């Protein structure tokens, strides 16, 4: 493994992350999580999913959040040394609160229950593929813009 973290939330293989636990950190994560969840709620309110329809709102939130996590993590781990609360606030909090895994799986099951198993399967697969590609795109674009060479 390199010294770059694998886990956004906390990676105990990175020495600085082992000692970072303190109240300002938890407050930053809580505030970021609240903002992210509000943003997700806004997207869901703007794009309501009819019963058995493709859950576009959650799809868009998860994919755009994955693009942004790719950008953020390259910036804070490869491009510059960020303030110690930047990753907790933006990565763990805002993007963690904005994206959701629980709604993704529950949406899928509800779409099946609504009698649209093909839509459910398409949603399940498309979210996974698009989200992973979005992370890769976010990381590559940021590395290219910042001129970072991958170690």
């Amino acid at each position: 493994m390199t010294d770059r973290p694998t886990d956004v939330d906390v990676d105990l293989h990175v020495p600085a992350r082992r000692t970072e636990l303190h109240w300002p950190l938890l407050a930053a994560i809580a505030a970021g999580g609240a903002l992210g969840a509000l943003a997700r709620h806004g997207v869901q309110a703007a794009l309501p999913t009819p019963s058995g329809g493709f859950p576009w709102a959650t799809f868009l939130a998860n994919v755009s959040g994955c693009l942004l996590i790719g950008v953020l993590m390259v910036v804070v781990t490869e491009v510059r040394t960020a303030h110690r609360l930047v990753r907790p606030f933006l990565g763990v909090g805002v993007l963690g609160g904005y994206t959701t895994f629980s709604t993704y799986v529950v949406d899928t099951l509800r779409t099946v229950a609504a009698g649209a198993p093909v839509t459910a399967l398409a949603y399940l697969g498309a979210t996974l593929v698009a989200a992973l590609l979005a992370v890769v795109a976010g990381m590559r674009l940021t590395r290219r813009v910042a001129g970072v060479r991958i170690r």
Partner: protein
Amino acid sequence: MTLLLIVLGAALGAPLRYLADRAVQARHDTSFPWGTLTVNIAGSALLGFLTALPLGDGVMALAGTGFCGALTTYSTFGYETVRLMEEGARFHSVANAVASVVAGLGAAYCGMAIAQTIA
């Protein structure tokens, strides 16, 4: 009021994800992201349970959209899966993606089934 309930739920869920991830990692010295997998499965089970109960909009905003939404994460899951692939841990990367989706679906299904049994 709905917005305030979402804020409250998310302000609890996001730090709990961090603390749970930390607690799980402290017990497993591996690069496999057990912590995120754990919170995503637990949050999926809870949201499945809640959606199958006849709950009001307020409770769903607080516990569903806010708490479960912020407790679970797609961005961290996606980033970890890509990073494992980058590090050459191809098996762990694919296993993480497959296990997360399969276990998440299973957990949400179990949550719904339990709620339907008791409701």
